[in-house]
């Protein structure tokens, strides 16, 4: 009886130790991979890329949460674009990612801030959204990007050219 209790206690301790090791080892970092951030070059059509590393899923972070977090990161990176010494078509300064939601294979990106402050012409809009869509559709399981502005679906930006009221795909370019 006493021996069996000891065995149970040892087993319990082993389980706790293994769980602790697993938890702490997952917290320690280490890449799960890279995120490719696309931006449209100043020729208006070709894409450049930069690479940022992705964190591994945190302990307790579900797959859905992780996908959302990665999509949010990807959207913010794409809207930020490359550093200013890289010639690129960029969203207007002050454009913010308000929210990101993932539903099936579609990511909805809510843009806020100065996104409507476009310079005019198709050039900027085309390049901005091309980079954003290519970045997000580079994520596993994502093939379309829906855009909302300030939480609302809009057919296009004010005075704009691109149709934004249906999800955008890479094949739109």
């Amino acid at each position, binding site marked *: 009886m006493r021996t069996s209790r000891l065995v149970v206690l040892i087993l319990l301790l082993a389980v706790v130790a293994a769980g602790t090791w697993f938890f702490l080892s997952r917290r320690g*970092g280490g890449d799960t991979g890279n995120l490719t951030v696309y931006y449209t070059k100043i020729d208006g059509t070709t*894409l450049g890329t*930069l690479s940022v590393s992705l964190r591994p899923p945190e302990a307790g972070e579900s797959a859905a949460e992780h996908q959302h977090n990665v999509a949010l990161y990807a959207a913010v990176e794409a809207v930020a674009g490359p550093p200013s010494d890289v010639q690129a078509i960029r969203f207007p300064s002050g454009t*913010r990612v308000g929210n990101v939601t993932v539903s099936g294979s579609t990511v909805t990106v809510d843009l806020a801030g100065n996104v409507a402050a476009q310079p*005019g*012409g*198709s050039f900027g809009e*085309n390049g901005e959204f091309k980079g954003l869509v290519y970045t997000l559709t580079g994520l596993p399981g994502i093939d379309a990007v829906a855009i909302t502005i300030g939480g609302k679906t809009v057919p296009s*930006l004010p005075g704009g050219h691109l149709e934004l009221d249906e999800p955008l795909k890479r*094949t739109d370019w």
Partner: protein
Amino acid sequence: MTLVALFAAACGGVRAAESTVVATYGAQTLRFTHVESSPGGLAIGVSDPAFADLLRATGAVMTWKPGERYVLITTAVPVVVSFAVGDRRYDVGPVALQASFAPYQSGSDVYLPFDEVLRSLNLALRRDATGTVLQPQLASIDVQTFGDRVALVAHAGAPLRPRVLTDTPVAITYEFDGVGTTLVGTRPINGGGVRNIQITQSGTARDPKTLVTVSLLPGAQHDAPRSNDDRDVVLGFSGSGAPPGPVAVATPVPAMQATYIPPDPNAPPGQQPAAAAPSGPALVTGVMAQPSQTGTSVTIAVTGNATYTWHRLRDPDNRFWVDIAGAQLSGPPIDQTQPDPLISIRVRQVDPNTVRVAISLAGQKQLDVSPSATGLSIDVGRDEVADALREGSGSIGSTVSANDNAAPVTPAPLGGDQTGDSTWKFGPSGSGSTYVPRNPRLIVIDPGHGGSDVGAARAGLTEAGLTLDMSKRLRDILIARGWQVRMTRDTDVDVYQPNDTAHEELQARDDIANNAGARLLISIHVNSFINSGPYGTTTYIAKPGDVALAKVLRQHLSSDLGTKDDGIIKSHLYVVLHALMPAALIETAFLSNPSDLSMLESSAWRQKVAQAIADGIDDYTREYPAATQGGQ
């Protein structure tokens, strides 16, 4: 108890009481009230109103909502700084760093390591007898070497306005007012005429100065400081001293991705003779892209005997693919983005006996396919070619042969999916390629913008006015040639109604063309950008049936206008997408570019635009009669 302490430490450490930090930033006094002391340093709550003020003042933007684990700060550079609750790691663009402690949740707020946040904003907390200052920092000096030239690129958290303090043949000293630094010290360079750089700091916490002394090699020359934007300064040097030797003083500049697909290490291209290949199907063991003198060389390593066929599509759909028959892919499918002149490479086993390598090209690039005993070499040049070969075939292995056909036999993918990786999008109004106009003599001209929407504006000119002028000129030419013409507007008005939505406005323009059963819709626009760099003429399309029209229009526009030919761009433009008929949106020139602006100001040039479009319409309709228009 010990375990609890261990978990507590792992999750962010023991926290002390909240405190308040009052600091000046320029002329602003910021009172940070959500501040806590942690073992690793001060923590700042992201809901702190003063923190929001600081981000705003530096041009940074924060992405975070209560309950979210990640806090993302986009700096003015811009670079995205990513913090995660419970993780000491934080990312500054592509660089992963360790913070002094992990961000943690406290109530509904998330607390970040304040020093690391400030560092990413190129700021530092400094104290003097009068209080605390948020001091802009000269955060880094990147050393960039180009042959016999060296550029020192200084980045800071405030506008940099260097002045030359001393200038002698052996050294030049620059003073950066208003910024401090932690980069104090001497770094050897020994290249580009520069022996070393010495960085020192002087001044006070509130009025710091950073001095950068550049020791020169004999015969060195230097340029005047220049700036890409206010927050960096480029100091250029050249000389013939010691061999250049780049020394990175700091590392914050994200590198362009230089990806490559490694070949199977057991079968490196060019080293494994075909005779050693196993019997049975050939194996595709690796695909590698490497920069070459003329562009990029893609090597496909194949062991065994196989045949191949390759195809490329027509500009603007610049996809290339090669099918290797009788082959199997020895590893998993490959998806890689690639730098110019490629965009991406994909490798797939498309059927049990065929491996397909699909390459997206960044334009109609020069491309040569060469078979060998050990695989295929595809050299992609940086130069564009007008009449690229469209297909070829050959064999690999013990018998090497190639047969490239000059005839452009591969049609553009009108609705097809010839490479298996993408399809053309068909707009809800149809493709345009099977459209039969009810009035084949009617052309609808759409002058972009108008009324409450002036479009782009510069130098007293508006896009709405310019597009109307060019449209009227086009109308007159077409009518003189016997066409019927309808304008979506012929005065400076909104087509739908004043202050309507973009949807109403754009759909109204499509409705005019669609309801009239017009032959073509031509939308005329003027481009613009935030700086004067881009220039030229672009023809935008959205659906397969627009391609042929756009190509003919582009031909005339590029040869007649004297602007740079920016080609044809496929995009998701509403007015083109929702037109039932073949349509094109022509961005005639950039209002934001001085050279293009001078052309737009010229009525003679605007007449040329109208003439070129009219000639394009005539050519297109001759080549593609109404019954078969939209064909290739």
